[in-house]
């Protein structure tokens, strides 16, 4: 599947538009530019005259409908009479919808598109913006910024991968199952820990780092004699799990270290896997990130936890009165998604008779991502101070993703807390999630562009510097109730799904995974996923191959 070379498909103009361009060039557009007005919500309209209401020149306002302004003679026609206008005046085919500033061909009776017109509109949008907003919006529209930094990071991890290859050659493929598959013993209500560990053990860039022994346990131990280091302990688990030994491993030392790190979570009781995930990454960061990188503000930390999992979120707060937008960036290691509660029903091939109700609601991951990036009107009790208006105003808030991590961790908020009823419940709905995920629509440029009407730009930024395409490799599922349930992780290795239920590793059909109740979903950038599959190939290295030696049974 080839990736598009540009974000937009540039539609071919109809012959009327082509004709108009030939004859009139950009003069009509330039004239219109003065009459364009940008609204705070991103809409662009045309206002010809300040004092009178626009009316259709044929029916004079009895039936208004939509009004279209002819680009040649500036006469107005309502939607019923545009065809009449182009028929009565030869060559007057192209008009513009004054409400939305969209080109319209009266003869084709269809909306048409022209890059040059969009450029004119965008130029006016930028000029109309309150000054400080301009930079963040323009920046949001282009994807330049962190290209070089990201490339370096990927290249660096790729070097690690080659060291990993060297390490791999030393292992003998004793069985036909991929290396790294090993059960983890439940140490007493620790399935929350085991499930996350399994996901971490198979996150390709994370795995490569630890298996190449990039975290040097020797020097680490010398540096801080008795303080536990989560990174060291994870390294030990990696070595054990990838050793080829298939008997279940007990991550006891890790539990001990983790409890030392997260004193408040240290107790023998049921815990939350997501909380554990955050806590572990934090623990690794604390030891690795310290001292090496004092640059705390822009999420550029070079510890392995951040290099693999950290992305950047963008939050735009727009004043609904003047359009002033304040933009903030926050690094994040995962994205917590609310389940979209609007019932979803489009194509349901297998289950035509199902009636959606409270208990059996369904949602999809894409719907949750849509909800996450949807503009949210903040309540009037949440008015924010607008720098431009110099007072508190109603605002709109919109999230988008500024920079994607190498490994994208999505957390589904299945917990619902009702302050009215003072109860909490778990949302058991099924969430459909794709095995291949394209995050492009949720990136800041896409979101900002959509806010301003999806205009075609001439200055498109360099496209696929970092791919937005991901492949799933792990799903942490939860079954049971809020207070007592069980976590299980499904791993996808070389297109086969495995179920990791504490000590038990079994093969499962992908349908089991699709039907499961996901709680955390882990995706990795597509390129890294395919490379990881190559690494784990269980066929013996060519130099060792002896066609007459029977392949050892799975041990």
């Amino acid at each position, binding site marked *: 599947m080839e990736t*598009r070379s540009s974000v937009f498909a540039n539609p071919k103009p109809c012959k009327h538009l082509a004709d108009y361009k030939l004859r009139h060039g950009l003069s009509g557009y330039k004239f219109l530019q003065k009459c364009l007005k940008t609204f705070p919500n991103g809409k662009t309209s045309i206002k010809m005259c300040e004092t009178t209401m626009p009316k259709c020149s044929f029916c004079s306002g009895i039936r208004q409908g939509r009004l279209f302004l002819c680009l040649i003679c500036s006469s107005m026609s309502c939607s019923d009479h545009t065809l009449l206008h182009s028929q009565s005046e030869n060559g007057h085919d192209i008009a513009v919808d004054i409400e939305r500033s969209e080109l319209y061909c009266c003869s084709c009776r269809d909306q048409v598109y022209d890059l040059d017109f969009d450029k004119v509109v965008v130029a006016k949008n930028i000029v109309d913006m309150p000054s400080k907003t301009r930079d963040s919006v323009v920046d949001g529209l282009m994807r330049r910024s962190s290209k070089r930094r990201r490339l370096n990071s990927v290249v660096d991890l790729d070097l690690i991968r080659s060291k990993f290859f060297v390490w791999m050659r030393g292992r003998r493929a004793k069985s036909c199952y991929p290396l790294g598959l090993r059960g983890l013993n439940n140490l007493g209500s620790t*399935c929350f820990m085991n499930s996350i560990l399994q996901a971490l053990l198979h996150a390709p860039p994370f795995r490569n780092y630890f298996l190449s022994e990039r975290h040097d346990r020797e020097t680490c131990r010398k540096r801080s004699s008795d303080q536990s280091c989560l990174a060291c302990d994870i390294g030990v688990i990696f070595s054990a799990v990838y050793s080829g030994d298939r008997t279940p491993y007990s991550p006891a030392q890790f539990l001990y270290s983790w409890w030392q790190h997260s004193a408040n979570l240290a107790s023998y009781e049921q815990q939350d896997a997501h909380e554990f995930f955050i806590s572990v990454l934090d623990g690794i960061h604390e030891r690795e990130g310290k001292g090496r990188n004092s640059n705390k503000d822009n999420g550029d930390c070079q510890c392995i936890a951040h290099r693999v999992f950290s992305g950047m979120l963008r939050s735009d707060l727009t004043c609904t009165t003047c359009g002033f937008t304040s933009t903030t960036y926050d690094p994040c290691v995962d994205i917590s998604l609310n389940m979209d509660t609007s019932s979803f029903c489009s194509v349901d091939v297998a289950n035509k008779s199902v009636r959606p109700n409270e208990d059996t609601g369904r949602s999809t991951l894409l719907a949750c991502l849509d909800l996450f990036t949807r503009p949210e009107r903040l309540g009037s009790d949440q008015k924010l101070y607008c720098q431009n208006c110099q007072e508190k105003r109603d605002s709109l808030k919109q999230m988008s993703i500024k920079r994607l991590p190498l490994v994208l961790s999505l957390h589904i908020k299945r917990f619902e807390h009702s302050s009215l009823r003072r109860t909490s419940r778990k949302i058991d709905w099924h969430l459909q999630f794709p095995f291949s995920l394209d995050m492009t629509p949720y990136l800041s440029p896409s979101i900002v562009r959509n806010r301003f009407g999806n205009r075609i730009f001439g200055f498109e930024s360099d496209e696929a510097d970092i791919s937005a395409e991901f492949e799933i490799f792990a799903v942490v599922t939860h079954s049971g109730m809020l207070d007592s349930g069980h976590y299980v992780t499904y791993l996808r290795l070389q297109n086969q799904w495995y179920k990791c239920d504490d000590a038990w590793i079994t093969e499962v059909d992908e349908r089991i995974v699709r039907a499961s109740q996901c709680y955390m979903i882990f995706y990795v950038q597509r390129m890294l996923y395919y490379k990881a599959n190559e690494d784990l190939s269980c066929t013996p290295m060519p130099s060792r191959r002896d066609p007459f030696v029977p392949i050892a049974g799975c041990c």
Partner: protein
Amino acid sequence: MSVPNEDNMSPHTQLSSHFFGELLDSIIVDVASECHRIARLGLDRNLEEEEEELRLSAQARVTVADPSNSGETNGKYVVDIFGQTHPSVANEVFDCMNCGRPIVAGRFAPHLEKCMGKGRKARVKATRSSTAAQNRYSRGSPVSAYSAYSNSTGTNRLSNGTYNHTVEEYSNGTCEEP
């Protein structure tokens, strides 16, 4: 809501009905125009792939719900892929790194809790949810970025289980101590 009969309406009602119609038309045209642009410029997601995914998902759920389907779905394990079998309480024995005593793996967590002086009995602090919020990954906690969406931080969590979970995978056995 049926369209009111124009002849029987008062001029007032006619006028408001007319305005409503105009507003509704305007909204519809807005949406249509936006979608038209998205479709023409190729910005819409690959709908075929999406529908295929939904179909697979629905199919999967039907298959799994069907009780006549094989062993994987009911969760009972006989052997794992390596041909091994495991007891409900992990019986590997190793030495506790805190006190040095040999401990059975499946009972390690409750032992360690007492051994380290942690846990419910030892703790006197505030509830876990508030402390968990503080202990959150401090650099750019995801909470700050989208607090408008999240519930209070510590409350959105699910607990794991003991062996008493709904799917019968283990014969008996809870490790839970009071």
